[in-house]
């Protein structure tokens, strides 16, 4: 037990540290993420510029911090919008059969698209800006959330107490919000966490392709794209954004995994102490 919690605390700590650093970067660094200073362009990391500077002489630490902020905001916005929409659609589908037929077909159709492809196409057509990125990604992840919520809600719907409530004449809205909703919160949290991390990854890919967050706003994908151009001479421009995105996603994934495992307990690793005791042949009773 302790073993698992250590891991969760560690990665939770990493996540909190990244978030704090990114949101409080101005406390640590006097630089602005946008001011160009060509005289100090492509400086390797030193005491003044912790992560070095980019090809416009902008401080990379601040750029990475802002990029993490942008990526987190995009991820959070997508998770919230897709989570809320998916929740609503899923619950409505579970409750109203005719609606289910239509909305679920739509979800199936949207689900059939490879998600990054659909996001690229939507942003490509609408034009690259943050709002469109959020819109596209939300649209892409609604179906998977809606499906899960619908499934979970259907299980609850079949239960006897719902029958009883209906017999008592409880309104649909009341049953949905008071009785179905609490029962789908746990799968919703798992899904939303997943969407959060996947949206960050997808946004990075979009920006890396130039179809995401437009320059000069930094995002992790943008920074990596810029870093790619100077990968031979300025390793720091790829390294730091790369580390940032890997740590961020790793933390989110591990926390998400643990959340999911918590929701459905399975095989747990045996504590080292017990294994040692077994080896010694310690007996009891």
């Amino acid at each position: 037990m302790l073993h698992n919690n250590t891991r969760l605390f560690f990665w939770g700590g990493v996540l909190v540290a990244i978030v704090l650093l990114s949101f409080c970067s101005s406390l640590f660094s006097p630089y602005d993420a946008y001011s160009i200073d060509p005289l100090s362009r492509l400086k390797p990391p030193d005491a003044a510029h912790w992560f070095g500077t980019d090809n416009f002489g902008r401080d990379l630490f601040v750029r990475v911090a802002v990029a993490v902020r942008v990526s987190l905001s995009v991820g959070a916005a997508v998770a919230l919008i897709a989570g809320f929409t998916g929740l609503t659609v899923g619950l409505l589908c579970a409750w109203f059969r005719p609606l289910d037929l239509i909305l679920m077909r739509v979800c199936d159709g949207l689900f059939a698209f490879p998600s990054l492809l659909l996001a690229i196409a939507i942003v490509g057509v609408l034009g690259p800006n943050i709002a469109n990125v959020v819109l596209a990604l939300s649209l892409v992840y609604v179906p998977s959330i809606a499906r899960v919520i619908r499934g979970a809600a259907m299980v609850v719907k079949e239960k006897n107490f719902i029958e009883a409530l209906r017999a008592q004449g409880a309104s649909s809205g009341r049953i949905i919000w008071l009785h179905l909703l609490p029962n789908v919160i746990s799968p919703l949290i798992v899904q939303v966490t997943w969407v959060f991390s996947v949206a960050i990854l997808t946004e990075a890919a979009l920006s890396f392709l130039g179809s995401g967050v437009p320059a000069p706003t930094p995002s992790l994908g943008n920074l990596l794209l810029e870093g790619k151009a100077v990968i031979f001479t300025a390793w720091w421009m790829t390294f730091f954004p790369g580390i940032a995105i890997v740590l961020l996603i790793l933390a989110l994934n591990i926390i998400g995994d643990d959340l999911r495992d918590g929701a459905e307990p399975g095989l747990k690793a045996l504590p080292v102490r017990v294994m040692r005791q077994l080896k010694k042949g310690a007996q009891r009773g």
Partner: protein
Amino acid sequence: MKWFLFHRLMALLPVLFVVSLVVFCLVHLAPGDPVLVILGNDASPQDIATLRQQMGLDQPLLAQFVRWFGAVISGDLGHSLFLNASVTDLFMQHLAPTMSLALYALAIALTFGLAGGVVSAWQHGRLADRVIRSLATFGMSVPGFLLGLFLIFVFAVRLRWFPVVGYRSTNDDGLLNLWYLTLPAIALGFRIAALISRMTRAVMLDVLQENYINTARAKGVPESLVLLRHTLKNALIPVLTICGESFASLVTGTIVIESVFGIPGIGSLIVDSIERRDFTVIQGVVLLITVCYVLINLLVDVLSYLADPRLSVEGSEN
């Protein structure tokens, strides 16, 4: 079997309908008049009128959709607005690099994913298992393009074992083609290898709990065969399903990986088309890939149906 196929195909129809509806809407989503979007603002009024009529934009939206849908069904996805070619031709021209990359990546992912999963399940709880699981978690968290940059930096620039970027057609030299595609395929396949290895491990561990595994052991089947024959074969069916789902991430993954490694495949076509605002190509390619993806999932369904004797017989009994 026939019923199963029929059922699955019928279920596909609404999906394809919605897919084409969404794709149809893509161009109409674009801000502004689609004709101006397509022709550019400097188009002459005459050209605008002609195209408007050609596209049937003077008709109600529903009629337009029916018309477009009819054309799509007959295989006409329209013409590129910039290149002198039909969308279908462009797609076919760019298909080979993407397919070879995707298949190569899938081969790598399957090899390493299965091996990793089997070793991980076999060494369950030990060092090897922990290393493999950490690698897999890591693999799920590293974007493919970042891994690609890293591979380029280490294996192409520093060690010079592989070419940095580029693509050679299989027509020129098959081996050269593989050599050029190795780094991209690793960058692309790593995540799926991680996915497959996690899945394989989980399923193998489940299967290892099964009674028939003890039967096999009691028969005297060596542990290696217990794993590779009795366990893996049962575990393969869910893994096969994962492979089908992985195709989506392979296809979308190639879009990014191709741009890292300069491979002239579907991904480059899409990215270029977006830079050109070549909407008919975006529309057509998205539709084609999605249909491919849907069909591949169908194929995987049918394959796993055939692979599992329990399912096929139950089907025939019902």
